[in-house]
């Protein structure tokens, strides 16, 4: 059943991606975009159900690589819907939909690689660590999407693109920069606290706060980059192209951490 739910969510994310693409190119973008958002909403509900069922069914959680990626996809959708609710930026889903698709597809690909965790270390500390880290990476994912759109549109404006050739359905530069600002303001503290809980959990699990694990090192790198973005935005007031690029870099490093470090390097996080 969990696989079925995952497959359905995957299909809906794929459909949403396709509809958003049609919406950008076609003549009735608003109606097509609404259908795409509905697909993502159903996908989110299915993923929520999947996570609840999985948590209830498996009290001592089998932490699979697939489970790592599914909560991340769920977080991404949650953050996107929160931003949509607050700011009404539908175009943010243009980035979120394909990213969720990639995460869910990867989750299904890695489904067979299970590794049970030691029950002792499973508890509220781990839950807080994972929740906050996923939420902050989800926030950064949305910001990275906004950053892509910002850089694209900014490039068009800097190159004096004809008004009629400018994309009609994406938010203004100011709106996209606002997403970046929100991401830096809330995402960095969440990530920092999540990381602290991670180190506490590491101490509980392996007896050491820091063990020069590749995952720990790259997490600190992400923290530094995220912190730099936070500093630039909140302290120096930097905005625009620089912070859009920073958001992309932070998210890229986070994805590298999930897909490469977890998979190919010897780390405690090789789930």
């Amino acid at each position, binding site marked *: 059943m969990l696989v079925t739910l995952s497959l359905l969510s995957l299909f809906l994310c794929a459909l949403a991606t396709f509809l958003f693409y049609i919406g950008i190119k076609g003549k009735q973008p608003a109606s097509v975009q609404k259908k795409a958002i509905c697909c993502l909403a159903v996908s989110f509900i299915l993923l929520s159900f999947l996570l609840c069922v999985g948590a209830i069914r498996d009290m001592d959680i089998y932490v699979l690589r697939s489970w790592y990626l599914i909560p991340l996809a769920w977080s991404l959708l949650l953050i996107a819907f929160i931003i949509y609710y607050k700011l009404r930026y539908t175009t943010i889903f243009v980035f979120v939909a394909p990213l969720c698709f990639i995460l869910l597809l990867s989750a299904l690909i890695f489904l067979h690689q299970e590794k049970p965790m030691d029950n002792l270390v499973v508890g509220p500390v781990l839950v807080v660590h994972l929740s906050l880290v996923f939420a902050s990476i989800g926030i950064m994912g949305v910001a990275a999407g906004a950053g892509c759109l910002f850089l694209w549109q900014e490039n068009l404006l800097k190159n004096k693109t004809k008004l009629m050739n400018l994309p009609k359905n994406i938010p203004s530069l100011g709106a996209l920069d606002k997403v970046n600002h929100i991401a830096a303001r809330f995402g960095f503290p969440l990530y920092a606290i999540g990381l602290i809980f991670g180190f506490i959990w590491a101490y509980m699990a392996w007896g050491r706060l820091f063990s020069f694990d590749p995952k720990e090192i790259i997490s600190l790198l992400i923290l530094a980059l995220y912190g730099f973005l936070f500093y630039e935005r909140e302290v120096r007031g*930097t905005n625009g192209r620089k912070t859009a690029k920073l958001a992309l870099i932070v998210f890229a490093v986070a994805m590298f951490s999930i897909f490469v470090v977890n998979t190919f390097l010897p780390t405690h996080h090789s789930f």
Partner: protein
Amino acid sequence: MPIIHLIGLNHRTAQVEIREKFTLTEFTAPETWPFLCHKRSISSVQNKLAVKESLILSTCNRVEMIVVYDGDYEDLLKVWCEVRGADINELRACMYHYEDEDAIRHLFRVASSLDSLVLGEPQILGQLKAAYRLSVQAGHAGLLINRLLHKAFSVAKRVRSETAVASSAVSISYAAVELAKRIFDNMGENKALLLGAGEMAELAAMHLMNGGIKELKIVNRTFARAEELARKIGGEAFSFEVLEECLADTDIMISSTGAMEAIIRPDLMQRVMQKRKKRPMFLIDIAMPRDIDPAVNNLDNVYVYDIDDLKEVVEENLANRKQEATKAGQIVDEEVKAFEFWRGSLTLKPTILDIENKGNKIAEEEVAKTLKNLEHLGINNAELHDVLEKMAHAIVKKCHHAPLEFLHNSYKHHNGEQNTGIVRNILKLDG
């Protein structure tokens, strides 16, 4: 008959960088017309110019001269390049030259905004009227320029009332506001600055105000003009000296001054952006020559659009206006024919006068001869004198009716000049 020359370049034939080199904005005031004054000639030009009448139209999208001159238009090009210190080959590469009927047609099309960057825009008519006013004040408008311009204004009025060529609301100011919406999230939080107090900038500022801009500052070298505009469109006037401070508190700037070189330069904008903590700025430059150095666009979070960049917006409604432009073109053609007929009649009038004078002279001579002969016969009657005079003039008039009608019809069919020569020869009007 003197030739009507029209030489110029516009947004279609020359990029803004080239138009800047040949602009004649500073020469449109009467007291600054040293080179086209038909009362003087320029010693630096090899062939002395004897310009009869002239008018200069210099706007952000075109620079044109209408000159009534018997000589070669190349003389005019030389003078133009001399006063601008520019290369004549560069001018030749992008200019156009029309004579007589073609010049009249072009002028009528310009006045009717059929040749404008934005088809149907109303500003060109006001600009043409201002240029004509200056020509009159300088004493450079004679019979032809006066008649031509008055006719151009009435053609423009006819085009606007009989076609829908000016119906759409698309304009440069509209494009500027739409672009601003691509940059800023909420126009209601933005502050705008108007640099210069030109008509185009005023229009763009009004569009911004309608778009919900929070605040409008107006900066102009002449503070009184800034105040006047502030009262008219709602805003606050500032003197030119505080430009940098005003820029630091501005999100959107529209520049439309008459300055001959860039006012907004990269070093100034770098200081401004530092003060603004690099919050984005949108700068719209609709001046000719440009007020904003193009290098300013390379700065982070600064977006500069000049007049050529904004012109693309016209393509949205161009298809609709083009249909109306065809109808408008037919009106222009009609009016050109009518004007040419009138112009031809200028040549005809002396001939008509000569025919009438000659006829009257013959009639009077023959009446005098007949009365003298009657006196020898003992007949001397005042009433007879009147009757004979009337008869003589009636005969002359009837004899001349056919050639005069022939000449009038000749001008309608565009071979008036040739036939005038034939008639003059037949009637021996030239001795």
